[in-house]
């Protein structure tokens, strides 16, 4: 029986706690009385995922069985989530592959020839062929790639159509193939509550024109948090767009969830509470620490990025988008929710080597902010673990390190924009269009493997809520110049950071460490 998440109070017997530190790890002694929040153990996966998928397709939620929707001669499109999740990438076979194989078999039985498969990557980077192959599996890749298995291009004017405007004036565009299909089947993998639902189509198959309606500073600042869809202006906007899409094209939605078994056996200690570490775990910790302390960043990156997570599927639902997504969110919360009593003055977080936007690339400073102040901070319901005006302490080396292929516009955003201002609203006014419409960024997004020109802005505004909420933000062990460029403070050690924090929150502050990843959602008592 997997244990639920837990909140442990630090006493004299509490061992030092693991902090992620980019491509490194640290053990840190937390102050007496501090809380450590641990994620739940991985849930038992479904024993026979293929059978569960068949069942879901045969008995969908608020929709007809998939088989009854399929007919010879129809134009059918399957869209699937890109490699930005799960993190780390899932060990083969990916659940999306299992779902797509089942759907394709059914389509073949129904005599459907006109079937296209599109990676719904929105404004994310184009995947490499190997990355696509990893998600869809060899059989699908060989059969469909490249003519009938390809990646969405949000900048292809010919192949994106204007669908209309929502009642709130949000423009909606959609991939032409999807818009002109008789049936679109969306195959999703929901790792966190932000994913899935109407957001899948309204971002994954959309263009900048459509995405900017909700990917903006104002919306993000009004989302408390975007990890909790009912309180998320981002999601309300996506829902409005998604409903317009549903009125335009017949959508059959399939969502899967996985447990939080995020690390393979060699890194099992990262998965466990320190009190549960076996001698083998301790040995692996020491070996990993030794390796990460002495090896150059590029070597460590290669080792870490080669890791595949042994995720197990915990749920699969199919049918109407909202009905499916409600069930999906239930399944996700079951895995990641941890009840936490009240807020604290200080929250500490270890930022790991990987986020959704740096697979096979270094986590550049803007992505560190996106990961730490964006994703990790926003993993809460009701209210943040950190009290308003409290101090957020993060550990990450935060080096000036960019991948010129994946993140070309990030370099300019860091060097030009953040040198000018850090204010998300002001940045948006001055720079949004310039980055979105830069012809070279457009070309690199379309032809190479670069994130869209506007993407660094999205990564930055993902942190807007945390930046507004926290009284101070301190990075431990980071490159001082980089942290100052980002607008934050820098401390050499965690103890120094605590001492600096006292200037903001006073003496004897309450402290909570969120021991993540694996992912968890702090359900903070209202």
């Amino acid at each position, binding site marked *: 029986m997997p244990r639920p998440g837990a909140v442990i109070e630090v006493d004299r017997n509490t061992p030092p706690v693991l902090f992620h530190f980019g491509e490194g790890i640290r053990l840190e002694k937390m102050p007496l009385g501090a809380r450590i929040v641990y994620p739940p153990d991985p849930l038992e996966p479904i024993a026979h995922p293929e059978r569960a998928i068949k069942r879901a397709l045969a008995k969908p939620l608020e929709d007809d069985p998939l088989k009854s929707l399929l007919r010879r001669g129809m134009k059918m499109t399957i869209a699937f989530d890109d490699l930005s999740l799960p993190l780390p990438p899932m060990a083969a076979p990916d659940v999306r592959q299992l779902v797509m194989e089942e759907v394709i078999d059914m389509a073949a039985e129904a005599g459907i020839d006109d079937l296209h498969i599109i990676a719904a990557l929105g404004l994310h980077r184009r995947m490499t062929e190997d990355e696509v192959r990893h998600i869809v599996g060899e059989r699908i890749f060989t059969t469909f790639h490249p003519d009938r298995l390809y990646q969405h291009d949000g900048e292809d004017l010919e192949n994106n159509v204007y669908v209309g405007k929502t009642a709130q004036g949000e423009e909606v565009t959609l991939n032409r193939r999807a818009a002109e299909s008789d049936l679109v089947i969306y195959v999703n993998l929901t790792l966190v509550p932000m994913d899935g639902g109407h957001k899948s189509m309204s971002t994954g198959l959309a263009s900048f024109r459509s995405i900017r309606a909700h990917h903006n500073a104002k919306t993000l600042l009004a989302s408390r948090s975007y990890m909790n869809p009912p309180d998320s202006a981002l999601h309300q906007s996506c829902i409005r767009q998604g409903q317009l899409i549903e009125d335009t094209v017949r959508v059959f939605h399939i969502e899967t969830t996985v447990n939080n078994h995020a690390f393979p056996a060699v890194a099992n200690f990262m998965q466990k509470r320190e009190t549960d570490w076996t001698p083998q775990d301790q040995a692996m910790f020491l070996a990993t620490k030794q390796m990460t302390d002495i090896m150059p960043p590029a070597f460590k990156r290669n080792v870490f990025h080669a890791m595949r997570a042994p995720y197990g599927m915990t749920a699969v639902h199919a049918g109407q988008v909202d009905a499916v997504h409600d069930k999906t969110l239930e399944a996700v919360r079951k895995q990641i929710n941890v009840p936490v009593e009240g807020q604290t003055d200080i929250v500490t977080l270890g930022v790991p080597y990987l986020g959704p936007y740096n697979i096979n690339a270094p986590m550049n400073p803007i992505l560190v902010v996106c990961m730490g102040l964006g994703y990790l901070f926003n993993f809460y319901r009701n209210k943040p673990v950190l009290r308003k005006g409290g101090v957020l302490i993060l550990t990450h080396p935060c080096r000036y390190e960019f991948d010129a292929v994946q993140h070309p516009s990030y370099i300019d955003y860091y*060097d030009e924009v953040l040198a000018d201002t850090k204010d998300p609203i002001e940045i948006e006014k001055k720079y949004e269009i310039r980055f979105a419409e830069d012809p*070279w960024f457009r070309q690199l997004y379309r032809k190479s493997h670069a994130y869209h020109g506007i993407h660094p802005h999205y990564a930055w505004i993902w942190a807007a809520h945390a930046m507004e909420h926290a009284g101070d933000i301190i990075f431990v062990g980071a490159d001082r110049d980089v942290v100052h460029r980002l607008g934050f403070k820098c401390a050499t050690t965690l103890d120094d950071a605590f001492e600096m924090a006292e200037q903001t929150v006073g003496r004897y502050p309450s402290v909570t460490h969120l021991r993540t990843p694996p992912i968890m959602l702090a359900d903070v008592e209202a």
Partner: protein
Amino acid sequence: MLALTYARSIPAFAVVKAAGGRADVATSALSMLKLGDVPEPQLPARDWVRVMPSLSGICGSDLAAISGHVSLYLDPLTSYPFIPGHEVVGVLDDGARVVIEPALGCLVRGVDPPCPRCAEGRPGLCYNVTEGPIEVGLQTGYCADTGGGWGETLVAHPSQVHPVPDSLTDEAAVLIEPFACCVHAALRGGATKDDMVVVAGAGTIGLLTVAAVKLFTPPKRLIAIAKHPTQRDLARKLGADQVVAPADVFQRVRFATAARRLEGMNRPLLLGGSDVTFECVGRADSLNDAVRFTREGGTVVVVGMPGEQKVDWAPIWQRELTVTGAYAYGTEPKRKGRKTFELALEAAPEMHLDELTGPLFGLGEYRDAIAYAMSAGRLGAVKVAFDLRRLRA
């Protein structure tokens, strides 16, 4: 009189060059540069005047000559031994403060009618630098007969002498000559208000080019490339809209111009780029970068004195670049034929040029002065100069 003299010596040149131009070798007993008593230069004609230098700058071209990096092209255009120093503020016998316009063209040499270039008002391009009562030489400071700023006295034709307004200190006035070069360069570059301009290099010439371009041909945006912190601060102060490190120039120019960037095996190139680039370093790396980040059909103005550098001509050919030199000064057709020195002297009082000058050294400290000047950027200095006022006291 006391003066530093540069003597032509092939063995000394070879020794200094072999040492990579190191300051300690370039100012040693084995070098071409010597401090000592020499006869005062004679007035070549009755109308010439004597000038007692107050401050005399150490120019990049002087350092190139001393360190053996100078282009041998200039050798036959120079007479030896000469007293270096062409950035000079000094006093006349009557005590009037003047700056020297060093070009030794037809008017100075008494050649009449003047050569076509001098007739156009471009004495820097004079055909007749071998003629007249003085030895061959392009400028005061490279001519055996005129003396130079690194000695107690030099001689000048009245047309070379410009009065210094009281509002200009000696420390500011010593920069009038290089500033006039940069004003001339800016006007040759001819940037328009819609242009994106890059000034590569932030030594004296680079910084003054930034100022000159902003004053005389203000572009839409000016990016300065500067290596050292003091240079970066000064470039901003003098009007650069953006200052970037040499390693970032392709990234920054690309973004500023929405160009496209392609990675080459040795260095990147931009499709698009700056409209006008002022190259004020004169070294191969900087020149090769400049011809790759200046847009197709754009202009590269070579302002910094280059030596014999290996430059890939393919970008110049393929991009149909206009690569143009900007040497010295004269009269400026784009400013109604006014003298460049007058334009520089008019603009200078507002520019706080004295902030760029220093430290100052006596002639006896020339070894330290040369060594300091060779590392000026790294040491936070711009214009290192000799202070000869003490010799008169």
